[in-house]
């Protein structure tokens, strides 16, 4: 029997590793309204309005949301403390910091993207004989609902969920305890439609069908 907790955590940990956009380690400055660079392009690096950024290497590394993006400047929702240009800094977009993982109550923060997840075990079948030592197949869904900010266009949400989808390409295998969980290929990972909601959010759902095999153990 597969360890479903291990499957759940393997899928979640895979999602947590998503990288939507990043400057990589480079020379950046903090301005009163956001961040700036002299070389390279924030646009080319994949940043879009509505994304939640995580700075690193600055004196203040507060998570914030982008309200403007040009090649050389990022505008943030909140004012920044000015810091002169220095090397070895990074600005990146990953999994939103506000997360409603299963069975944890969350009150979303206005103006911040957030995540909900559903782990849905479905079928469980013995595929081979004898029963003891036979192969058991279990299937299910892992669903991630990415709540982006409304009125920011399609780029932030689509790029974010596309990056997540790329992590769950058909055939992707993840270690789940002593077993392996695979992203199904016969019906593969699907991104849905952007659904506008009240409250300042729009949601985009990613559905990941998975399959896991384990050795059946019949208790004495």
């Amino acid at each position, binding site marked *: 029997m597969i360890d479903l907790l291990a499957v759940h955590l393997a899928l979640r940990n895979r999602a947590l590793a998503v990288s939507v956009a990043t400057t990589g380690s480079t020379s950046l400055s903090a301005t009163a309204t956001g961040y700036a660079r002299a070389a390279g392009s924030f646009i080319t690096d994949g940043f879009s309005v509505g994304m939640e950024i995580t700075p690193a290497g600055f004196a203040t590394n507060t998570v914030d949301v982008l309200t403007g993006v040009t090649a050389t400047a990022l505008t943030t929702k909140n004012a920044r403390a000015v810091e002169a240009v220095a090397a070895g800094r990074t600005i990146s977009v990953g999994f939103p910091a506000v997360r*409603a993982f299963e069975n944890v109550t*969350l009150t*979303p923060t206005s103006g911040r993207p957030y995540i*909900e997840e*559903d782990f*849905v*075990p*479905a*079928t469980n079948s013995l595929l081979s004989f004898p029963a003891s030592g036979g192969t058991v197949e279990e*299937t*299910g*869904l892992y*669903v991630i*609902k990415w*709540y982006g900010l409304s009125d920011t266009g399609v780029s932030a949400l689509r790029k974010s969920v596309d990056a997540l989808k790329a992590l769950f390409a058909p055939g992707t295998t993840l270690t789940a305890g002593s077993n392996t969980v695979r992203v*199904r290929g*016969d*019906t593969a990972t699907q991104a849905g439609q952007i*659904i506008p*909601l*009240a*409250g300042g*959010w729009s*949601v985009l*759902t990613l*559905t990941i*069908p998975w399959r896991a095999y384990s050795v059946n153990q019949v208790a004495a």
Partner: protein
Amino acid sequence: MPWTGTTPKQFATKVQTLVPAVFVASAAHAHRSVQEGSPDTGSKGQPVDEGNLRASIQLEFPSRTEALISTNVGYAESNEDGIARPGGGPYIQRSSVGGRWSFALTIAGIQRIVDVEAARLAG
């Protein structure tokens, strides 16, 4: 020794008969999976309070090669994905019967549905 097995013509006739039957049976099974749940897909079916949602899940055949499973109940979408509308956030299921993702699980399990129905009808 004379040949006593199925001739190619008999086989073709059997397939021609079975294919539409498997299609209709699979559509009915998918409808049941969405509505009431199915061990073959893992769907738990629709939640039940007064039964309106479950009764609203309809199966139609727009053509000989299409089956359409639908509902006209507005909150069906929120029961499916757990997203509260219009405000967002979690949508609390109050029924102990049924569950989320019945449509998605049925879609993910459609090949198994077809396999089950084909095996049943082929005997």
